[in-house]
């Protein structure tokens, strides 16, 4: 447990010191939302489906930027080898990296939601509370997938290019469910009415967290 906590603490410390991941995620979210606000018909700006779609586009793009950095600090100076040589169980390392990536993505998403409300002329009301679990499930699933893929592709020359090519199609089921559930949440629907979409997202999260936990040690090596 202490090694798990040590890795998260180290990642948070590096993030607070450099601020690169969250800033990059927020900058990408802002860019996507601004582009979409100007690209869309003004009459559609306040609609829930448009806002939800824009938010998830921003989330996926910013998530990919974050994912390419997920193990970046570990590759620098070969620190990943230091971790793999240590008594730390690779599955625990995966769990810690996933937890750190989720925290960064959740913080960035909170910022993106505020930007979405402002850019799409929405109101700060209870619908945003219903949106929270949808976004958290999305962030968890994307972090689980991206951490695993980042480990698998990070030591290849074209890793940064391969990652989005793999991540976006694989994330599609959760993406569709997330957009549908977010649209429902922003339209004022109850959590119960979006339970089918939430179940898909939960299944996606369980699948990729389990896959990451089991496969991480086999894909993270240099060999």
């Amino acid at each position, binding site marked *: 447990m202490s090694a798990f*906590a040590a890795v998260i603490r*180290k990642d948070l*410390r590096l993030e607070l010191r450099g601020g690169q991941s969250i800033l990059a995620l927020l900058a990408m979210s802002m860019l996507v939302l601004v582009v979409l606000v100007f690209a869309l018909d003004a009459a559609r700006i306040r609609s829930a489906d448009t806002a939800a779609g824009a938010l998830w586009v921003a989330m996926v793009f910013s998530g990919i930027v974050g994912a390419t950095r997920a193990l970046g600090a570990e590759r620098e100076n*070969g620190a990943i080898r230091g971790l793999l040589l240590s*008594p730390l169980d690779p599955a625990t390392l995966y769990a810690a990296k996933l937890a750190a990536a989720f925290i960064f993505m959740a913080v960035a998403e909170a910022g993106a939601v505020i930007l979405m409300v402002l850019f799409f002329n929405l109101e700060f009301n209870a619908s945003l509370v219903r949106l929270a679990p949808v976004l958290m499930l999305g962030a968890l699933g994307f972090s689980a997938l991206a951490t695993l893929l980042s480990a698998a592709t990070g030591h290849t020359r074209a890793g940064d290019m391969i990652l989005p090519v793999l991540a976006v199609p694989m994330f599609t089921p959760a993406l569709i469910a997330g957009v549908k559930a977010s649209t429902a949440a922003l339209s004022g629907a109850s959590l119960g009415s979006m339970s089918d979409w939430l179940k898909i997202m939960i299944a996606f999260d369980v699948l990729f967290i389990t896959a990451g936990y089991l496969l991480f040690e086999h894909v993270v090596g240099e060999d």
Partner: protein
Amino acid sequence: MSAPVVETHALAKTYRLAPVLREVNIRLMAGRGAFIIGGNGAGKSTLLRILAGLEAPSDGRAIVFGNDTRKLGPRYRRRIGMMAHQSFLYPNLTARENLEFYAELYSIADPVAAASLWLERVGLAGSADARVRDLSRGMEQRLSAARAMLADPTLLLLDEPFAALDAEGVSLVASLIHSAIERGASILATAHSVPELDGLEFEVFELSHGRLMPYAPKEEVRRGGRFRSILGR
């Protein structure tokens, strides 16, 4: 007689059809030290990475503490300390934070005290709060030595441990190696040429064209075959 700490059987490694290591046989007993010398690209670093379990051999077997290095569990990894070309340190963390982090990974009871002790030992107490990226290459190498020895490993794999060090740094790292051998650790180190280290008695081998052979300068040949003992034949 106790089992060897490191043992390899016809170890081979090939990168994209190019053989790097060919039929390397090693037997290193507890409390013994050996230097493997060789030029750039001779395969020294590859050999150490395989022994650390960071790479898989293409053929043959590498056994450390009686276990195949492809399946080294946490209990055995804990007993290995490694210095490599890369320092395994985080540039944006301070020297102290790096050591405390590794001390936590190795479940050392008091990470703060252990970090302070090792910073003192490698002469970096004055730079404890400097970020690694602001340290000189030599200081980073000393810190890397501290990281490798932090958990008192019983096997030290040292890839060019004296690289980038000034005379004082070489003497300091040599004394740490000496202390490790005194407490019973085994050392397998690499270098480009035979290091001249006072008070350290190492067996020396040469890795050439992927094959490990006794390093035998003329005067040593006349003295007798003291180089053969780690070659597992």
